[in-house]
């Protein structure tokens, strides 16, 4: 304990040294290295080197799993890219996508790893006997890359830009999840860093630190994790509701703070990483909420899951009748996948289905309310009481879902009973 301040200082000091060193290296390479490819290799190499050197990331995961996987994904994408006179074999894209998905499944989910171990006749065998952090994000980015290169939306990717896109260290662990085409423009022509840009980037970093280390930390003692399961069974409804609100704000400050840090840091490297949050708790319905919370994930889900699933289901449906069943199926499947992507546990699946059902209900309400008079729509959309009511309902729908996100199912069941003052 006596050495704690010193340890904290040396840890953060080393992070700061690595961070400032990277900025200095990239600035120097822009100024002194005339060859564009060499400059880009320095950029990509610096990101990989930092990830390998950072103290709390196991370098074996990056060296023995992530880098080989990225090489394979890149080669497959190059093979799938449209070429004159070449017809892509049927199922080739699906097969290519299956590789990163299988790696994620076997490494992240204990049950899948155990099944694979049993199939290989080695009970207790683990596909990756080391920690592999950031794999969920990498796999979604890899799928996006494979789809966009194979459709021709992205042309002639280079390995150095792909490597840097996948391993840009400010965004490596938890996003924001950029898109390759957008990232590549900044990578090949890094944005200039004027005094105003530097001040803005530093402000985002300071804001992110404040949200994470002060605001999120202030909420933490009242949130779920501060109660043991036995204590949860005895807390009052008031304390349970406090835990719900505290966790909602802790999660928001922690995650949006992390995104601020990533956006500010990447900007100092000349990369404008997309925004990830736009006042999500002030949205008036759950569809709007998902355009404002973890935006880079929700747009990924929209483009690579929701749209293809919805399109396929719509094609099967054809003919008259309501589109609501198609909408509901698309929302539920998409968010069930989103739930499972977030973590290994039934509670994550339940959280995803909660949101899928919420989005379906929102769509159904939108259809149903079309019959209501124009005055009702004006009240809900244009007056303060109408907007406030919609925001309050949406906010509570979201924060009650975090109970499933943050607790396993037995704990969540206890909490819901306590919230209602029963049990």
């Amino acid at each position, binding site marked *: 304990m006596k050495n704690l301040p010193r340890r904290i200082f040396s840890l953060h000091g080393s992070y700061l040294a690595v961070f400032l060193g990277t900025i200095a290296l990239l600035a120097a390479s822009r100024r002194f290295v005339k060859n564009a490819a060499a400059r880009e290799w320095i950029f990509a190499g610096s990101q990989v080197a930092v990830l390998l050197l950072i103290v709390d990331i196991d370098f074996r995961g990056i060296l023995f799993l992530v880098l080989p996987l990225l090489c394979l994904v890149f080669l497959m994408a190059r093979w799938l890219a449209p070429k004159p006179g070449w017809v892509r074999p049927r199922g080739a894209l699906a097969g290519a996508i299956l590789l990163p998905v299988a790696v994620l499944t076997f490494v992240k989910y204990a049950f899948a790893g155990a099944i694979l171990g049993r199939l290989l006749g080695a009970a207790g065998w683990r596909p990756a006997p080391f920690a592999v952090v950031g794999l969920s994000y990498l796999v979604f980015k890899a799928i996006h890359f494979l*789809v966009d290169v194979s*459709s*021709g*939306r992205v042309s002639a990717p280079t390995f150095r830009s792909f490597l840097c896109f996948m391993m840009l260290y400010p965004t490596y662990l938890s996003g924001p999840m950029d898109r390759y085409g957008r990232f590549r423009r900044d990578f090949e022509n890094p944005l200039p860093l004027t005094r105003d840009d530097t001040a803005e980037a530093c402000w985002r970093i300071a804001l992110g630190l404040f949200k994470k280390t002060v605001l999120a930390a202030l909420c933490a003692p009242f949130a779920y994790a501060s109660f043991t399961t036995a204590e949860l069974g005895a807390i009052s409804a008031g304390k349970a509701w406090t835990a719900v609100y505290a966790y909602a704000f802790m999660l928001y400050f922690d995650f949006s703070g992390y995104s601020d840090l990533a956006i500010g840091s990447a900007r100092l490297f000349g990369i404008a990483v997309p925004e990830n949050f736009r006042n999500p708790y002030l949205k008036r319905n759950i*569809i*709007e909420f998902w*355009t404002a919370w973890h935006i880079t994930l929700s747009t990924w889900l*929209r*483009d690579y899951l*929701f*749209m*293809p699933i*919805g*399109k396929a289901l*719509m*094609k099967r449906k054809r003919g008259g009748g309501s*589109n609501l069943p198609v*909408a509901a199926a*698309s*929302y539920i499947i998409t968010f069930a996948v989103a739930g499972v992507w977030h973590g290994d546990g039934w509670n994550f699946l339940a959280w995803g289905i909660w949101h899928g059902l919420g989005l379906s209900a929102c*769509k159904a309400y*939108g259809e149903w309310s*079309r019959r*209501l008079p*124009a005055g009702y*729509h*004006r009240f809900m*959309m244009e007056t303060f009481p109408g907007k406030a009511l919609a925001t309050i309902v949406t906010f509570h729908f979201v924060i009650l879902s975090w109970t499933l996100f943050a607790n396993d199912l037995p704990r969540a069941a206890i909490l819901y009973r306590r919230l209602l003052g029963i049990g």
Partner: protein
Amino acid sequence: MIDSTPIRDFIRTRLLRPGSPAPGEDDPLFSNGRIDSFGVLELIAFLEEQYGIVIDTAKHHIMDFDTLRKVAHVVAQEREGGRRG
């Protein structure tokens, strides 16, 4: 270019909330939240049926359907592609 009147009517009667004015050629539809992503899917299904085209969502970004002018451009492009292909 194509006549965008049927598309405008579909958007106004099926996708926008009741009482909304008909959208202008360059009025944002998706980016300002007037229609959601499922609304874009409904629009694509309508376009495919109305104009006998196939729209591959992997080739088009959702923002390609953000205004009437952009939607008409996608339809013209796909019809042209269909004739050539």
